[in-house]
C-alpha cells in the first residue's frame, strides 16, 4: 500500500462504504472494543455494550487513509463515528448524550430499561485489524 491515494473511487473508500451498508450498527473507532486506544472510543463502546447491542467495529488506526476516507464520506472530522442503518448517528458526544436521554436505545431498537451507566470496556487482547463482525 502506498501513501495517500487521492482517487475518488479508491479501494479503501469502497470498503468503508460496503462495511456501512452491510452492518446495521457499525462503529469506526481507535483501537478495538476489547482494547480501545482512545477515551472517546472507549466511552462510545461502553454505551453500546451497556445496551447489549451487537455491533461491527472497525479500527481506523492501522492505516491513516481509513480515517481520511471515512471523514470524506461522512463529512465528520472526528473518531469515533457510529452508523446505524447506514446513517451517521454521531461521535462520542452525541452517542453519550443520546445514551443518557434514552434516544440511543430507541434508535437501536432496544428497551430503554437496558440502560444504566456505561461499564468500562473489558481488557482483552486485540483481535485482527479487519472489520470485526459482532452481529452474530
Amino acid at each position, binding site marked *: 500500500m502506498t501513501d495517500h491515494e487521492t482517487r475518488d473511487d479508491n479501494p479503501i473508500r469502497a470498503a468503508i462504504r460496503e462495511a456501512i451498508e452491510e452492518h446495521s450498527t457499525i462503529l469506526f473507532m481507535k483501537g478495538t472494543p476489547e482494547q480501545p486506544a482512545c477515551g*472517546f472510543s472507549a466511552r462510545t463502546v461502553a454505551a453500546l455494550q451497556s445496551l447489549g447491542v451487537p455491533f461491527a467495529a472497525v479500527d481506523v488506526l492501522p492505516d491513516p487513509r481509513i480515517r481520511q476516507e471515512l471523514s470524506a464520506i461522512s463529512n*465528520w*472530522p472526528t473518531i469515533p463515528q457510529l452508523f446505524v442503518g447506514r446513517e*451517521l448517528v*454521531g*461521535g462520542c*458526544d*452525541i452517542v453519550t*448524550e*443520546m445514551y443518557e436521554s434514552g434516544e440511543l436505545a430507541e434508535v437501536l431498537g432496544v428497551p430503554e430499561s437496558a440502560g444504566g451507566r456505561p461499564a468500562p470496556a473489558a481488557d482483552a487482547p486485540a483481535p485482527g485489524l479487519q472489520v470485526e463482525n459482532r452481529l452474530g
Partner: protein
Amino acid sequence: MPSPDELKRRIEAAIPGARAEVRDLTGGGDHFQATVAAPGFAGLSRIEQHRLVYDVFGDEVGGAIHALSLRTRAADPHDQPVPSQ
C-alpha cells in the same frame, strides 16, 4: 496554540447569534469542550448542529485542536449565556 477564549470568539463570530462556553479540558491547549447555543440550530439534528461548529475550525479539528467535545442546542436570539459545565 489555541486558547479557550480564541475558540469561543471564533465560534461566536462565525455562527450568527451563537453563545459559546469553551473549556480547556487538559490545560494542554488541544483538548477542548464547547457548549454552544445558537438560534440557527433550531430544527437541525445534533449532527447538523455539531457540523456547523466543526466547520468553524475545518482541518484544525484533529490537528492543532486534537479534540473538541461539543454540546449544542437551539437558543432564543436573546438567550442568556449558556452555563459552563
